[in-house]
């Protein structure tokens, strides 16, 4: 809060707006009186607006890099490329090897929970599989992170794409980058070291279990309108909590939210990665109409003026992902 009088200055930076917004959502969980639905809804609108700007800036940067490095530096956006297959990006089908999957899971976990901090993580390396698809423009990285973030649960949807944006566009010369960043997840106290695109998670001794997503990936997406079920291995929550206000018990009401499962699930999942079609449909259900909107938006990006304040109706429709962030809380 402003104390007394202070100069009213603020940098209208998308990234800082995103981190401020996430911090607000996070702190609302501990506020007296419970989650304020109205305020969190408004914050989610700001998050979405800032995300649009952030992504459009990234696309612009990528496009500029493409102009400079036309000989195919990995994962550079080519907005003029034919768009990925509608609704079922093939690169998701060609999901990386189990080793990478494991990392992806771990990364998604961090993405799911770390929020703002991860925006600063310049994860640069990209698994070689994806590098072979240069024409995928921003989508592979985006979808990958979307894939990893999605099943991570309600909290994951929000930061997921942001993470992708930061991750894959962070630097042009990816594969040999050996940067290393350590981030602390405020929710789980998990310390995550990001190095060469591989995530190492060091759990605090206090944290009883590691934060891991993944059970969601193995399950079919919830049909819209049905009560959300919790996956086996998670605690049973009262039905009433789901029906009731968001964030009631902390985890209620949202889509599959996998707070803490045993590490063993990693190995389980990696054997199951062939179930990619269900992953994809899971992703789509999570992003709803906004997902399709984003797909088509990438085509249009090169034509659109990069006005940070422009929010297309399509993009506005993808509020669902952000609302889930609220609901999951």
């Amino acid at each position, binding site marked *: 809060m402003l104390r007394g009088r202070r100069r009213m200055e603020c940098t209208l930076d998308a990234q800082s707006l995103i981190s401020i917004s996430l911090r607000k959502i996070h702190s609302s969980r501990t506020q007296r009186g419970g989650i304020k639905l109205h305020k969190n809804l408004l914050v989610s609108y*700001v998050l979405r607006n800032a995300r649009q700007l952030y992504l459009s800036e990234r696309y612009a940067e990528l496009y500029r890099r493409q102009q400079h490095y036309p000989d195919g530096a990995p994962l550079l956006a080519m907005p003029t490329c034919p768009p990925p297959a509608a609704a079922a990006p093939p690169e998701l089908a060609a999901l990386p090897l189990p080793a990478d999957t494991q990392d992806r899971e771990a990364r998604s976990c961090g993405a799911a929970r770390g929020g703002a901090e991860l925006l600063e993580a310049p994860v640069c390396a990209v698994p070689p599989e994806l590098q072979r698809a240069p024409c995928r423009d921003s989508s592979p990285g985006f979808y990958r992170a979307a894939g990893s973030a999605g099943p991570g649960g309600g909290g994951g949807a929000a930061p997921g794409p942001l993470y992708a944006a930061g991750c894959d566009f962070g630097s042009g010369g990816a594969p040999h980058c050996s940067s290393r960043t350590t981030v602390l997840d405020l929710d789980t106290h998990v310390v995550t070291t990001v190095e060469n695109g591989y995530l190492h998670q060091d759990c605090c001794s206090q944290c009883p279990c590691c934060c891991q997503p993944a059970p969601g990936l193995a399950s079919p997406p919830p049909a819209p309108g049905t009560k959300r079920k919790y996956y086996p291995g998670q605690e049973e929550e009262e039905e009433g909590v789901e029906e009731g206000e968001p964030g009631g018990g902390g985890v209620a009401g949202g889509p599959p939210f996998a707070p803490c499962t045993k590490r063993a699930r990693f190995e389980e999942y990696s054997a199951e990665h062939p179930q990619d079609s269900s992953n994809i449909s899971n992703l789509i259900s999570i992003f709803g109409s906004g997902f399709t909107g984003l797909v088509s938006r990438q085509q249009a990006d090169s034509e659109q003026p990069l006005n940070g304040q422009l929010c297309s109706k399509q993009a506005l429709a993808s509020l669902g992902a952000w609302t889930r962030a609220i609901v999951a809380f």
Partner: protein
Amino acid sequence: MAVVAKAGGDGGGSNEVQWCFLQVKGAIDEDVAEADIISTVEFNYTGDLLATGDKGGRVVIFQREQETKSRPLSRGEYNVYSTFQSHEPEFDYLKSLEIEEKINKIRWLPQQNAAHFLLSTNDKTIKLWKISERDKRAEGYNLKDEDGRLREPFRVTELRVPTLKPMDLMVEASPRRTFANAHTYHINSISVNSDYATYLSADDLRINLWHLEVTNRSFNIVDIKPANMEELTEVITAAEFHPHHCNVFVYSSSKGTIRLCDMRSSALCDQHSKFFEEPEDPSSRSFFSEIISSISDVKFSHSGRYMMTRDYLSVKVWDLNMENRPVETYQVHEYLRSKLCSLYENDCIFDKFECCWNGTDSTIMTGSYNNFFRTFERETHRDITLEASRESSKPRAILKPRKVCTTGKRKKDEITVDSLDFNKKILHTAWHPMENIIAVAATNNLYLFQEKVN
């Protein structure tokens, strides 16, 4: 153009109302206890009683002094009439949630007998309180002594009829009804119907209709909760019954729209009868467009022909017969538009300002920051900015108009936007139903101002 006669004003109606200080209630300390922060202010139907609720769950009722020959100057002063604890903090064990005791709204019922009734609500529970006076006491009981002890029956040798003797006035507040367990989300509004038998309560997603006599049942009349919470795009922010038509109510949304519903047309009013929305100006789009368009208050005019809505930067008056745009728009503090980012950071952008009409619907009032509040005269388009401060709190001192400097050059007595104190906000104001007396809540202080009488 019709001449609007102002209540209590001079005959011509062409002179501006001048406000002067009447009273201030509350502690002077710089250190404000959070529980003392006033959260709602409401005059009753006659204006003789003024109720305030605070974050600590207490209700304080002030009563206007009657004019007496012995104290002519104290006419119009409001003094404490009753204080009681309306709501206590609660804990919902099922959801592991604390329920705040803060009083969100108070609404008076019209007086029907010697006692006064009001509804007060926190986030979850509405209570009907009876405030009654006791100025007589019965004496001369047969079975008990004067101090209340029971007498031995064999000591009763003769019978007498107890008599009523005068006593010092005592004002008692007792809870008569508790309307609970009907709201999953946070209650933001209550509104008494013109039939004086029913009232509505609104939370973020639902509006319920109650009968004042029935506490174990309420009817849901509006439900905007989507089947899939992911699809949630707006919430209900305020609701009010029409002052004359007991079947009509309106509710405002976080998207800046107002829906008017008719309970005669269907039991569940999810379908609106009228939909009020002003098209957005695309050139003013920003990150915070959704936040500043969210309506924080909606109030019908006394006539019932208009309604007024308050969003973050403006007040709009709507004609109920015209849905596509407001008939009047008043900018409250447009200079904040370029500061929205900072206001978002410090959470001020979420402040919910209220607005109110004067008795004749000629003037509207709303609050701002730095303890400023503004009145707008609708016919003359005159507006004024005043400040509720201790400095200008001398008896019958005329309030000096304030001005915020929006350009580079600051004139004398102007205040720059950057020096505004955003911790001092006036969210709650109330206007006497018949006279030019206004109550302005400034954090933990209640200021009363009266029109200057020559």
